[in-house]
């Protein structure tokens, strides 16, 4: 399919001069684009470039302020998602729009026109999911499913509506390389069946492999159209960002040579809710000057591991050792005082309080450390603001006002701020969970560079990430976390993405693939 010139018949979808304003801010500014039947069309852009806004207007959940939409040559008004579905526009969301407490069949039924019973929908979805090689149990509850399976539900829900255009919002950001390959097979088949796909992503390699056309957005405007296969990842990234992205400087990989700063010994932890994963006998060492990476699909014990390492949940005294001292029973602030810093996955609500200003968020993790943020029970807001200014300056945090609330920052900027807040305090051990999740390409590169620099300066860094590309870019050694068990760390040089990807989906013994079914 790829590269084949499509017959330029009537476009399936044509946008002319679409604009959307929020006050004086132009989220979308005069966007025009055309999609042919059977075409896989990439929509590229950084976070905040206006991709989501555009897509929401196509799916009817937002209304454009200006511009026109033509569907198969007809001028249309898409008033709500039901109208979009009626036209033949289907959507697979990035942050899955599924209902955790409901079954697969119930979830699918909710997006179907009324009149079909849940049982009927269940039978139909079983049939269609099997025919596309995406097997699903209609009676399983969503929260028992893996992320990959949840995406399957989204896709099957979309397919059952017999769409002519499928919008996919960053479909591979949560998948292992193998799962992504399987998805591409399905997408190519859909394209061959004549369904058009609008594919939103910032993973350039997969856009090049999959898409026939690409439209690039920046600051709400179309800045380029191209055939991705004719470009290089560098040239695409340049169009997206509008400047050169500096690649993370390569360095000599370290293998278990430095002094051991943190040791984890037979760490066991029971998941604390109904759906959490238990950790089983997790043991590893963090060496001075090295970056260790832990790969794994979300929900395999990453948050439990992070909670245990940071001291949000305490464990046996001997399970966690920092610089020779048993700290398993100590809380997070005591561990911080020993030079360990922790950056959690959820930026808003966990790493930062959304409604608090940045300087107040500085106080939250750094009170009690040596910056003199408090004088007895009294806070020194002046000092907090100075620390905030230093972080903003050093890490290039872009913000709208002097001391805005954490929630008003974009994902990338807030992550830079949170990272800066922790690492500015002379950290010797840095534990970070999903450092670049939902962060734009430019900021992600900065964040990775910061982690590399810290390791160069002698910190022991642990990066927990679902993004294999990220781990292969910066980690010295990689292990995988699967069902709460950690594999041995292997030097990055002596493994590859396929091997790690397989470990992520198989149990530690490497025998059976785990499937959740109820």
């Amino acid at each position, binding site marked *: 399919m790829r590269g084949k010139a499509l017959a330029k018949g009537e476009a399936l979808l044509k946008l002319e001069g679409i604009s959307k304003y929020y006050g004086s801010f132009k989220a979308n500014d005069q966007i025009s684009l055309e999609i042919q039947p059977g075409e896989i069309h990439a929509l590229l852009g950084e976070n905040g470039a206006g991709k989501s806004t555009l897509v929401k207007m196509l799916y*009817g*959940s*937002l*209304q454009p302020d200006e511009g026109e939409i033509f569907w198969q040559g007809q001028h249309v008004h898409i008033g*709500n*998602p*039901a109208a979009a*579905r009626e036209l033949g526009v289907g959507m697979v*969301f990035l942050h*899955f*729009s*599924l*209902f*955790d*407490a*409901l079954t697969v069949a*119930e*979830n699918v*039924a*909710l*997006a179907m026109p*009324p009149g079909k019973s*849940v049982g009927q929908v269940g039978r139909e979805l079983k049939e269609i999911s099997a025919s596309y090689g995406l097997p699903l149990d209609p009676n399983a*509850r969503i*929260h028992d499913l893996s992320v990959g399976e949840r995406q399957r539900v989204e896709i099957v829900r979309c397919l059952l509506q017999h769409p002519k255009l499928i919008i996919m919002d960053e479909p591979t950001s949560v998948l292992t390389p193998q799962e992504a390959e399987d998805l591409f097979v399905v997408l190519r088949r859909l394209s061959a069946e004549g369904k058009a796909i609008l594919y939103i992503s910032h993973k350039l390699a997969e856009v090049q492999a999959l898409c026939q056309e690409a439209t690039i957005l920046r600051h709400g405007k179309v800045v380029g159209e191209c055939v991705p296969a004719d470009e290089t990842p560098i040239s695409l990234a340049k169009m997206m960002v509008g400047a050169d992205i500096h690649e993370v400087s390569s360095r000599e990989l370290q293998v278990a040579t430095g002094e051991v700063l943190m040791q984890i010994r037979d760490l066991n932890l029971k998941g604390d*809710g*109904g*759906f959490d994963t238990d950790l089983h006998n997790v043991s590893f060492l963090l060496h001075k000057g090295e970056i260790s990476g832990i790969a794994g699909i979300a929900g395999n014990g990453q948050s439990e591991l992070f909670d245990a390492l940071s001291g949000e949940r305490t464990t046996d005294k001997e399970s966690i050792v920092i610089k020779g001292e048993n700290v398993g029973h100590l809380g997070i602030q005591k561990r911080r005082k020993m030079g360990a810093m922790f950056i959690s996955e959820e930026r808003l609500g966990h790493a930062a309080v959304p409604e608090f200003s940045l300087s107040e968020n500085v106080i939250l993790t750094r009170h009690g450390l040596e910056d003199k943020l408090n004088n007895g029970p009294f806070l020194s807001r002046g000092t907090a603001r100075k620390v905030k200014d230093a972080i903003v300056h050093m890490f290039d945090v872009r913000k709208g006002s002097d001391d805005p609330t954490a929630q008003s920052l974009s994902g990338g900027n807030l992550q830079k701020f949170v990272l800066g807040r922790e690492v500015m305090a002379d950290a010797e051990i840095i534990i970070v969970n999903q450092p670049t999740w939902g962060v734009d390409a430019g900021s992600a590169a900065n964040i990775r560079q910061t982690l590399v620099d810290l390791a160069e300066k002698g910190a022991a860094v642990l990066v927990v990430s679902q993004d294999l590309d990220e781990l292969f870019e910066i980690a010295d050694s990689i292990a995988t976390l699967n069902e709460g068990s950690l594999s041995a760390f292997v030097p990055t040089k002596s493994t590859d993405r396929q091997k790690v990807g397989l470990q992520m989906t198989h149990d530690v013994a490497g025998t059976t693939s785990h499937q959740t079914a109820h």
Partner: protein
Amino acid sequence: MGITEAILLTIATAATPLLIAAIGELVVERSGVLNLGVEGMMVLGAVGGFAAMSLTGNPWIGVVAAIAMGALAALAFGFLTLSLAANQVATGLSLTILGLGLSGLLGVEFVGKAGTKLENISIPVLSDIPLVGPLLFGQDPIFYMSIALVIGVSWFLFRTRPGLTLRSIGDNHVSAHALGIPVLRYRYLAVMFGGACAGLAGGHLSLVYTPVWIENMSAGRGWIALALVVFASWRPARVLAGAYLFGAVSIGQLHAQALGIAIPSQFLTALPYVATIVVLVLISQNVRATLINTPAMLGRAFVPDR
């Protein structure tokens, strides 16, 4: 009618208002809205029902007025918390305080007036069955409504498409909105339904239980109904069980006190609360089942993006 039958009948009478108010609140909470104003809506229903009955002489008009009062109070709550996205906890508490005060004011003229009781309806033949007959088929009309409500709400929530939609909104209103479900419309209807039920429960107090108007006559039943919903983990059948358990223990302890059993009366008075909580906690031990049934959006305001 024997003494056992008489006691069993009073249990049903004590349990009915709790059951109706709780089943209404269950629907509200399943849609993701927490209305702490049950007590207020209930007492407004009681005064509205009694006033309408007193003015017209027809207790059925009282029933309609009780339902309307509750629904109206709920509409005010809905406007504040849904359209204006005000804090649900604070608004609900205010509604309770307002309801207690306003009902006192509205009811001044009716204090001490005798009312007409809503007559029991005996279903022919069936009510002649010994013991079970009068219990199940010789009751007041609101009792029948309460049972119909439990069955109807269970059927609606778990067997119909709008019921599924309502549950989905309570589970994740952002996803529901993304699918094009009118979140606020559903929530308005749920809140109004909950108010109508609370009003009817109040009407039961002033038209059936004790057909007079006394200030604050709801006497904390709205709060018990709220607690029942949570401890029953948002399941209608368990609300039914909880309401009857509470009714049985309250009536039982009254009889125990009357018989002069040597247990301090404070302890006996506390017994219904303790027993209901213990039993419902024990049956909610399945964490997974409880999580599935807990509306994840409970108490969270939803403002659709435009």
